[in-house]
């Protein structure tokens, strides 16, 4: 073999090694990084799908009041207006995730975190909330009050 051919084969050998080692290194990095990131991502917990909850007796719910009710793992606010009407909304403020409350003195649903306000229809009326609260359905069967998802 002449000199030039020798150099050529040397170079291709070097390239081959470069690709094998470089590729090996990348595969190694990926095989470390992928499990690491996968580990950081919390697994989805099986949640019990709740479609309806029993709140209690109608007689125990005062007029002109609001209470937080547990709906699965989410808080829901149940309102009873002064004329006795029942309404329920998601109690999670659409702004930054705080839990709202009923302010009797102001007659609004109020979020303490950033002074967001919603009216009796769950509509955002003042402050930073960008959207209305999601509405839930309230059903009264006999004496019992139920809250269910708004289909």
């Amino acid at each position: 073999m002449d000199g030039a051919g020798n150099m050529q084969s040397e170079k291709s050998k070097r390239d081959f090694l470069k690709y094998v080692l470089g590729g090996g290194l990348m595969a190694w990095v990926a095989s470390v990084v992928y499990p690491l990131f996968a580990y950081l991502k919390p697994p989805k917990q099986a949640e019990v799908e709740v479609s309806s909850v029993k709140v209690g007796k109608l007689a125990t719910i005062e007029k002109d009041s609001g209470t937080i009710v547990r709906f699965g793992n989410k808080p829901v606010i149940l309102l009873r207006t002064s004329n006795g009407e029942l309404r329920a909304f998601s109690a999670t403020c659409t702004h930054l995730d705080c839990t709202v409350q009923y302010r009797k003195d102001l007659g609004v649903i109020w979020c303490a975190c950033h002074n967001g306000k919603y009216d009796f229809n769950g509509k955002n009326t003042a402050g930073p909330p960008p959207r209305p609260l999601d509405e839930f359905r309230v059903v009264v069967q006999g004496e019992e009050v139920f809250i269910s998802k708004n289909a």
Partner: protein
Amino acid sequence: MSSILKKTYEWIDKRVQLETLVEFMGKKYVPVHRHSIWYYFGGVSLFLFIIQVVTGILLLLYYKGSEQLAFESIQFIMSKVQFGWLIRSIHSWAANLFILSAFIHMFSVFFERSYREPREITWITGMFMLFLGMGFGFSGYLLPWNELAFFATKVGTDIAGVLPFVGKPIMVFLRGGDEVTGATLSRFFGFHVAVLPGIFTVLLSIHLVLVQRQGMSEPMGMEDVPASERKTMPFFPNFLLRDLLFWLIVLNVLAILAVFFPWELGKKADAFASAPAGIRPEWYFMFMFQTLKFIPAKVLFIDGEVLGVLLFGAAGLLWMIVPFWDRKSSRGEKSRLINYVGLFVVVYIIIFTTLGYVL
């Protein structure tokens, strides 16, 4: 006794040549001028950090980082463990004083332009430490698992979640799920006692080595003063003793605060209770919190809080890279702009913090 000390010194010296270090320390001088007072706040921050490490380790002996036990374990520390109330109170107060001292340190460095060439790395590591300090504050705030902490964490992580594209994954990563739960507490506990201290220590080492290696920055224009008129003071022992005196004063302030205004524990977190009225974040987040309150839900077509977060992010970034856009100071020229920017930020923070407390 002294002969044992001498022998120990000689034994070590023979192996690691302490002599050069001693010589270096002996030659180190601190400039004396009318702004010298600001040199002490870096040291004060360091002192408070050391206090945090010590009291933090002490709290770890009794604290339990879980949803069921966290609140109760702090109740236990405060009511059953001897001097537990004091250790916790010191830890909480020192955290606040640390942020305060770091803020003073940062603004003094900013107004003196000490970040200018060749101290860019010192400035950047310092800024990262301040962010970490706020991270320490935010993660530590959740650990008692009380009502305020619960909602503060909900809001704080939700703000991270509004960022476009990366927001949601970051939020889930921080919370350990879609909601703030015991999983969040576990993660924050890990961040607070392992991740953040680890990173902080590395940054602190770089910061301190640079300060030693480059010496103290002198105010702008000192180069024009003839060498014979420049006053200095030996670092060891003159400056160090003054440093220690300052630390002693801080320790006293800390003790007074911790004893006479013990940190409260509040009510245990309840995922099914409304956010309590008067809820507010720690004072050093207040100006951002108050700004978010003022931004309307929609500005043009952008969500208010997205806009707020992006604006603060951009402002923070610009602030952090000031050594690179303020070329005037590096050339030794006066730059009015820096004064205006600094004053604007100080005034903004003061006004919005005050509004947060009076509104």
